[in-house]
């Protein structure tokens, strides 16, 4: 079945060479530092995100050490513990995951996958990275200010976040809020670029419904992020004014250290609304690109077209829309009207429908497929299992009546680490193993990659699976010390020690990945242009790694969707998106 209006044996004429002014680097500095090429910006984004990610990983060890051996480690006191909890959460969610998916993969893959030469506004794109870098530096700088970084928890709930007693109430909280505001400004510049590039710079024949799901995921996530981040922006600016000018947006009349503060009538609940208005979409801002990337990894490495492409696109849109109206499920215990709880529980559980649809489609793509257990495929499968696991505990927590006793226990910690910690990180690893050959021209070591996968995957389960049990026991999260507590048995302490030892081991094992990364950069086997025999456009560039302007003289023309695998009668088992149709050829 083909479009009847297009004659089959006549290839449409190639796209005209676009008369675009390409940015040309003139010196080393403009080529590698202040560069406007999206591919370089992508690597800068990813490098920065991974660097702060390692810092956040080390902070998680601090948390784990304290939980396993309370008070035994001399440098971990309550202040350090709370600062670590806060910084670990904030860095991982905002500065690592959001930045690497949208800034890293978005910048690298969008222009290549839609057949563009670069982002539409390269200068703004460069600015976006540098503002992000400054935001990161401001955040890290809070370690060097009196009082250290804030220890208010990543949710920064007032009034505690700006009052004495919370670590970092002097400078830490101010720097945190300034850094977030900067991040949002930088991100808005990047997000505008991603969206306009997808809308405007697609090459000839690349209709929206011929974009790889990776682009769909990143596109939808960018739209959501642009609509959700203003919530954090407003909350951040207003909290900053409360802290610095003494306004009473959020802080009620309160006595601090025996002194009646001048605040009056502020509404902490208002902050929670604004924060979670951003906070919940944020989960899907991280998840949607991961969904998209996983769809592509599974399809390529199972040599089969993605099952239900159209449904996958609709599910991405439905998840994007629904996730904007579920934020209240983070506030079930804030004393809100029961009808609100009912509303938010319904919308929350409704998200399970498009999400489950995606999971079914991934599984059905694997059904009767020619599965190659390459490292990227292993990570994709690992994601599938982990995501389902975390998603199901999400159904528990989405119900008000189940959430109330489980709220603020380790069950919640286990849930969100599974669903938006481990699952996206597995996708990031899978994606790096998958696209590394395109970025560098060399393959990564498969054997090391598989060792890395099994340690990370099994290790992550060993860390977070037992936490569900600890949570059901009623073990609270965020507590520095449990002390004498009747309801927590002694075995819980043993379990905590086991979790900590595994967490340290899995953390150190990531060295295998970095060793592989740097070794392959120099000594990896040459990859050629398309080592995975993938159909989507980024693998069809004339040069590998793609040169400046991506496509040489002429932009590619797209003749089909990006999932033409195992095509009957085709010379190979796949048809690249830009291969002209042959007479009598059947669509997959």
């Amino acid at each position, binding site marked *: 079945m083909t479009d009847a209006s297009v004659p089959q044996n006549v290839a449409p004429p190639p796209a005209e060479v676009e008369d675009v002014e390409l940015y040309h680097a003139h010196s080393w500095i403009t080529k590698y530092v202040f560069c406007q090429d999206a591919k370089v910006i992508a690597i800068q984004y990813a490098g920065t995100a991974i660097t702060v990610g390692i810092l956040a990983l080390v902070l998680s060890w601090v948390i784990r050490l304290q939980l396993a051996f309370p008070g035994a480690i001399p440098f971990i006191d309550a202040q350090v513990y709370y600062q670590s909890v806060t910084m670990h959460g904030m860095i991982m969610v905002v500065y690592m995951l959001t930045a690497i998916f949208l800034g890293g993969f978005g910048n690298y893959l969008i222009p290549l996958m839609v057949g563009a030469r670069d982002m539409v506004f390269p200068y703004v794109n460069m600015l976006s990275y540098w503002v992000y870098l400054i935001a990161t530096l401001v955040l890290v700088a809070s370690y060097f200010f009196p009082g250290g970084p804030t220890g208010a928890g990543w949710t920064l709930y007032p009034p505690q976040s700006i009052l004495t007693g919370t670590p970092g109430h002097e400078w830490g909280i101010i720097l945190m809020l300034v850094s977030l505001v900067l991040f949002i400004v930088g991100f808005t510049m990047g997000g505008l670029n991603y969206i306009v590039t997808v809308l405007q710079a697609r090459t000839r024949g690349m209709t929206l419904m011929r974009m790889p799901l990776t682009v769909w995921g990143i596109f939808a996530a960018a739209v959501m992020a*642009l609509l959700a981040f203003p919530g954090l922006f407003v909350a951040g600016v207003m909290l900053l004014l409360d802290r610095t*000018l003494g*306004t009473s947006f959020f802080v009620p009349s309160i006595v601090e250290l025996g002194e009646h503060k001048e605040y009056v*009538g502020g509404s902490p609940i208002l902050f929670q609304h604004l924060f979670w208005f951003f906070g919940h979409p944020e989960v899907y801002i991280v998840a949607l690109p991961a969904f998209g990337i996983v769809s592509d990894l599974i399809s390529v490495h199972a040599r089969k*077209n993605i099952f239900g492409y159209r449904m996958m696109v609709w599910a991405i*849109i439905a998840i994007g829309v629904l996730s904007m109206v579920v934020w209240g499920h983070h506030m079930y215990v804030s004393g809100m009207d029961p009808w609100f709880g009912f509303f938010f529980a319904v919308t929350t559980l409704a998200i399970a429908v498009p999400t489950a649809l995606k999971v079914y489609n991934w599984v059905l793509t694997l059904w009767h497929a020619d599965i190659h257990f390459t490292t990227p495929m292993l990570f994709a499968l690992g994601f599938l299992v982990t995501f389902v696991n975390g998603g199901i505990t999400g159904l528990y927590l989405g119900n008000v009546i189940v959430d109330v006793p489980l709220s603020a226990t380790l069950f919640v910690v286990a849930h969100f680490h599974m669903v938006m910690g481990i699952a996206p990180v597995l996708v990031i690893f899978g994606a790096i193993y998958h696209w590394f050959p395109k970025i560098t021209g060399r393959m990564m070591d498969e054997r090391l990659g598989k060792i890395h996968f099994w340690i990370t995957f099994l290790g992550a389960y060993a860390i977070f699976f037992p936490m569900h049990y600890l949570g059901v026991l009623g073990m609270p999260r965020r507590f520095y010390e449990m002390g004498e507590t009747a309801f927590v048995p002694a075995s819980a302490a043993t379990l905590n020690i086991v979790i900590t030892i595994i967490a340290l081991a899995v953390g150190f094992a990531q060295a295998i990945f970095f060793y592989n990364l740097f070794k392959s950069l120099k000594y990896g086997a040459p990859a050629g242009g398309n080592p995975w025999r993938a159909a989507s456009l980024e693998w069809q560039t004339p040069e590998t790694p793609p040169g400046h302007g991506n496509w040489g003289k002429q932009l590619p023309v797209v003749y089909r969707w990006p999932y033409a695998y195992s095509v009957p009668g085709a010379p190979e088992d796949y048809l690249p998106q830009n291969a002209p149709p042959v007479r009598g050829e059947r669509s997959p």
Partner: protein
Amino acid sequence: MSVMGLFFIFVFSVAILWLARQGVMESPWLEEGEVAHYRRAAGTEPPPATKVALAIFLAVAGCLFSLLAAAFFMRGDAPDWQMPPIPGVLWFNTFLLAASSVALQVALVAARRSDVERVKTALLIGAATAGFFLIGQMWAWRELIELKFFASSNAANAFFYLLTGVHALHLIGGLVALARTTDKVRNAACVTKELTTSVELCAIYWHFLLFVWLLMFAMLIGWADGFGVICRRLLS
């Protein structure tokens, strides 16, 4: 929150209508070759990328202002809420901003007719009135501060400063863009297509800021109280 609801209903309906027109109901696996009906009709050109970017930026800014309005109504529920007196100069400022918006519209019409001189004059008038608007806003702030309505003394005062401040910052950003456009026009002998686009973008942005200001002004002088009551009744 009702404000956000209204805002999202608008944004999502635009997005979904647009998506429906983009063929999300198609079956891409059945289509080979160039998809005929995606080709643009002869003579129509895609909108310039900058215009699309501005539209998306307006959605982001609209979201920001809607959230501020939502926060305004939610916080306004508290018993300590006491709106400050509204400086009379704000009425004059509203007139200035409207005049600025009209001037830019005139500039756009002139640009489409390739009337360079008229574009120059209209842009200058637009910039000047917008500048006077900002000075007028500062005047209003000064008046309130002299009457001792500080940001820290009541949340309503703080909202007054915050809303007008955020709006003014957006206008300052717009003035930067307007200055660059004016600079381009100053050296231009005739009106190019690119120039018309620049003027058009400025005009759109100005209309948006005028619209935001009118809603904001209605909120500040209390005309929107009824709306706040409806929101609260809906929510409780």
